[in-house]
């Protein structure tokens, strides 16, 4: 299976994962600072900034776009409970 590397910049930790893995499946296990509320793309708690490899995550859904907008997200922000990793990227908690 295709692998990809994701780096959590707040703890400067890189994890090698199978493509398609959701960020929520990793970040808590390695103790990164992304935090979660609803865990299903509704509350915006898990917002994070994608500092590199923005295009290496699955496209945000219409709903995710709306939640990001409502939470006044900056450019290249995503919900960690939604985004799946397709290729190498770097993220940090918003």
């Amino acid at each position, binding site marked *: 299976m295709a692998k990809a590397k994701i780096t959590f910049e707040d703890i*400067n930790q890189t994890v090698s994962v199978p493509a398609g*893995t959701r960020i929520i499946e990793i970040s808590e*296990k390695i*103790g990164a600072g992304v935090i979660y509320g609803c865990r299903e793309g509704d509350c915006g708690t898990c917002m994070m900034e994608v500092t590199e490899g923005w295009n290496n995550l699955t496209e945000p859904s219409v709903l995710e776009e709306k939640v990001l907008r*409502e939470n006044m997200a900056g450019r290249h922000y995503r919900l960690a409970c939604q985004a799946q990793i397709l290729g190498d990227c770097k993220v940090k908690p918003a």
Partner: protein
Amino acid sequence: MADTLNVATWKEAVEFAPGVHWIGALDPTLRTFDIILKTANGTTYNSYLVRGSGGVAIIDTVKEGFEDEFFHRLESVARYDEIRVIVLNHLEPDHSGALPELMRRAPQARLYISTRATTMLKALLRPNREEPFEYTTVTTNDRVSLGDRHLRFLHTPFLHWPDTQCTYLEEQQVLFSGDVFGCHYCDSRLFNDRVGDFRFSFDYYYAHIMRPFKQWVMEALALIEPLKLKVVAPTHGPILRERPRRYVAHYRELSTSSLSRELGDTNKSLIIFYMSSYGNTARMAEAIYQGADTVEGVRVSLYDLEGGEVAPFVDLIEDADALLFGSPTINGDAVKPVWDLLSSLAVVNLKGKIGAAFGSYGWSGEAVRMVEDRMRGLKMRVPREGIRVKLIPTQEELDECTGFGREIANILVGKEVQRGVIEFSDLT
């Protein structure tokens, strides 16, 4: 009128600035609010009406069941066809209860809510209405004109829901603040210079409703403090017309941490709490304490939960940067004093604080993982898997505990030891 005002018997609107009326309702028999709050004399649902040369605005409504009183007061000063603007500063049902009926009676009115309120509006009104309301979302510095009067909005989210905002009547310098500066206190004399001593209610309301959102209170105060204020008109309790700025200053005080001022900004606070029946978890706690204490810039405290009460510990936790919980496993669970403390933290913001767990066990050892999950649920960051020791810790295991304490303290001061690239399959 003010000297003899009694809105328990006076059922009409109460004008307190030119063209600005209280049209709320009293709920003197209420004793519990939102499950989490007590009140010894009820509460009020304050709604306000502003008349301008170009029309009438209604700011917030009342709880379901109190519509009659509200509409009666409204009708005493305005016709429904004069209403052009309805503002909801907060969509909680105690303020949106009469909205559907008000919109039905004043269909020409435009509803103004904060940018964060849209999905909530739908979910709150869904059962009662087929077609959604027309509304306009507003944010800081958006204004609506009532002719010779203007309402300006302040985006003040999370006080205490995501949707909350304040509305400022520019010409009269009245701030309609929503739940901010409110309290559950019912007094038919209505104004802060007339009612009984409501200070405890004011502080109590802050402690249970606003305290978890101190950061947001600070941001809101940054918008509110520059305003000229003749009256602060919240949605519950007395209308603050005598020296309203005192209450703004008091909010700033309540939101500023006293402990962090004392410690100074250089030290991080790491607190270890534990419970222990035979002293095994206590020994681990002591070793972790020794390890953490070797790290420069960290102030370490060690507490046996058996000797403390929840409330002061909650205060400590609010100001701490890292929290370590030690619990033995008893009947497959962490022990009650640990859960009691961990279930009393809804009033403080734990977001991003560092958490860790440890404990001695006999054969199954569930407690540590359960406490870690709870800490994650409370939005803490759990950077390292906690330490579990079977029964009596050996010297080797105690050394491991010392290392663990040192590592957590190092993480706290930003000296995290790098672990190289981790394989997903190695994560548990």
